[in-house]
């Protein structure tokens, strides 16, 4: 597969890893946070930490939109699915995430709700056109990569003058999440969490461009390297970060130049700006209320806003007290530091956000990496 296989060459990977080992200063350690769930997944799935030198460590950040969606919003989606005449459409990732009372969309479907898994917003629009007597609600989640497709769907719904298509909007913003982490006391003042640099998200950056990260690099004096999703991309980005740290630089560099430019995708950004506006604040699971971090539908598209059509419950539901997801999302703790990890909390029975999605730090560690814990025990 072109533009995929070449970026997965095992021999090149080992070569780059050797270079990293040669350039990493043995007198210090490097803590690099990968922000995007896709990167967390790639690192775990290819076992990249095994080929990095021991003083270069990856810290998993809150880059998984499934993980940061609060329980209250999942409950709200299930509530919508239960409204008479509603077909709720969702991306596959959300199906198994449990809300409060351990009900997930999958379980609600088994109990009789009409919930359909879709691959694209276009499928949801088609469903609305094919079922004029039903109300089709699209459960919109995701960072800036996934927002433009929802914007397109809303514009098309408007053009088609659909009366039965709605969006339940939960789109969130990447820079806000990064700021939350960097502003947290553990990072900014206490210095208990060492973060030396960031691997910037791949596909979010194709949309927003590399420019938005320049603020962070400058303000927080940390280098950012935007990386593609393939293992060689990630390794190359690690090398570039190690070099920046060694040289005392804090710039935005773009490893994913084949798809990311400084300005990103102007057409997509314009579409999003036309349809969405900022919410004053939004709850993030594990991070609490974050100002100006999420989007809602603008007035001209109000007819398609599920939250205006129905009185959707806006409850805030707390996580299990023993759940360490908040700390894990901010890179303060690791999955194995949580009492619930592997005991009560597993992918079959996720207690918190880090376990619900395959890209969450706990799920990734459980699914791909927990053999390392037993080595440590031995």
């Amino acid at each position, binding site marked *: 597969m072109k533009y995929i296989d070449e970026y997965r060459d095992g021999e090149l990977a080992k070569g780059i890893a050797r270079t990293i080992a040669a350039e990493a200063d043995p007198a210090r350690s490097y803590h690099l946070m990968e922000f995007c769930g896709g990167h967390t997944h790639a690192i775990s799935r290819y076992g990249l930490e095994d080929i990095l030198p021991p003083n270069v460590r990856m810290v998993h950040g809150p880059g998984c939109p499934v993980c940061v969606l609060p329980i209250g919003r999942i409950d709200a989606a299930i509530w919508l699915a239960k409204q008479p005449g509603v077909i709720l459409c969702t991306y596959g990732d959300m199906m198994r995430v449990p809300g409060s009372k351990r009900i997930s969309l999958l379980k609600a479907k088994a109990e009789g709700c009409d919930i359909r898994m879709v691959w694209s917003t276009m499928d949801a629009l088609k469903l609305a056109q094919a079922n004029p007597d039903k109300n089709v609600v699209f459960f919109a989640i995701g960072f800036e990569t996934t927002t433009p497709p929802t914007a397109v769907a809303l514009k098309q719904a408007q053009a088609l003058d659909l009366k039965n298509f709605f969006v339940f909007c939960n789109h969130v913003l990447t820079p806000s999440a990064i700021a939350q982490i960097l502003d947290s006391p553990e990072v900014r003042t206490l210095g208990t969490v060492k973060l030396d640099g960031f691997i910037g998200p791949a596909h979010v950056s194709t949309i927003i461009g590399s420019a938005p990260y320049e603020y962070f690099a400058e303000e927080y004096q940390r280098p950012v390297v935007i990386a593609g999703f393939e293992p060689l991309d990630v390794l190359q980005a690690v090398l570039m970060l190690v070099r920046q740290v060694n040289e005392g630089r804090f710039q935005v560099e773009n490893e994913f130049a084949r798809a990311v430019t400084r300005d990103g995708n102007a057409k997509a950004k314009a579409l999003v700006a036309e349809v969405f506006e900022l919410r004053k604040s939004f709850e993030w699971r594990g991070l609490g209320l974050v100002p100006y971090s999420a989007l809602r539908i603008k007035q001209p598209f109000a007819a398609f806003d599920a939250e205006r059509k129905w009185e959707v419950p806006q409850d805030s539901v707390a996580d299990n007290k023993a759940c360490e997801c908040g700390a894990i999302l901010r890179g303060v703790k690791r999955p194995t530091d949580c009492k619930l990890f592997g005991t009560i909390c597993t992918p079959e029975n996720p207690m918190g956000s880090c376990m619900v999605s395959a890209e969450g730090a706990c799920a990734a560690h459980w699914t791909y990496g927990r*053999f390392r814990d037993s080595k440590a025990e031995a």
Partner: protein
Amino acid sequence: MTLPRRSHPRPLDIAHGRVDLTHGGGGRAMQQLVEELFVAAFDNEALNQRNDQAAFDVPAGRMVMTTDGYVISPLFFPGGDIGSLAVHGTVNDVAMAGAKPLSLSAGFIIEEGFPLADLKRIVDSMARASKEAGVPVVTGDTKVVEKGKGDGIFITTAGIGLVPPGVTISGDRARAGDAILVSGTMGDHGVAVMSQRESLGFESAILSDSAALHTLVAEMVAAIPDIHVLRDPTRGGLAATLNEIAAQAGIGMALKETAIPIKAEVRGACELLGLDPLYVANEGKLICICAPEHAEQLLAIMRAHPLGKDAAQIGVCREDAHHFVQMETAMGGNRVVDWLAGEQLPRIC
């Protein structure tokens, strides 16, 4: 002159007819369906006797018996259909004990309104698969359920077979040091089925690998009677099956990602859908775990057989108190190949 009395005034209207509740009622309509469709297609001595059961002498030795249910949706997919799948799947379950399959039973639960043309297509396909495999369907049953209660058609089967002397194949016989072999490419069936599901909307040239493996197994077992484990990685794919065996035998496994054969198109389809080919179902492949000194010979036998051309050794068994199935990735790192909680894809078998 008396007119000859025909049992059924008109033959089944295969082209336009549908199954209705009379076909399951035990009366003449059902008899006609059984005669003109099932018995005509399967056509063997036992079935032709038209009893409710098949009688036969029990051969001396150790027997195996297996049962299966087929609920696959869609019913027709590239490379097969629910009928041929039912024969292949049941024959394979028997063959995975190293046994020679002797005969099959087939029960049909059909939804009212099911087109006779589709039923005939399925039954003919099943009969063809059965004849090609040399394993007759000796007894059957037909039921019809009301519209809305049956989703087209479900098929349940049972199969029996005879285990050759000296052969004790069982999941718990895998030992540390054993070689882990596969007979060919992984993930073909699941992707072929997905390609038919409307909501997924992609076209690809991937065919299901649905096939009867008993002749391949017979050759392997004749050469090496002391094979430890045979299993076909159906639902849950290679990953689920290896985890099952690891748990049964109380061992761990170490695989090499680059050694696992996967077709390029299957990789592409799985990439597109965010699936891991290790977890996608196969219906014409087997996993073989054997003592390391037998691996080379078994690989040669598999590769010489039409169903084993891409056979490869993918790893070894080892001591591991946690029973992890671990894999060295193409990058040289390590990961666990976990036992997934649930089905990645519903109703693919």
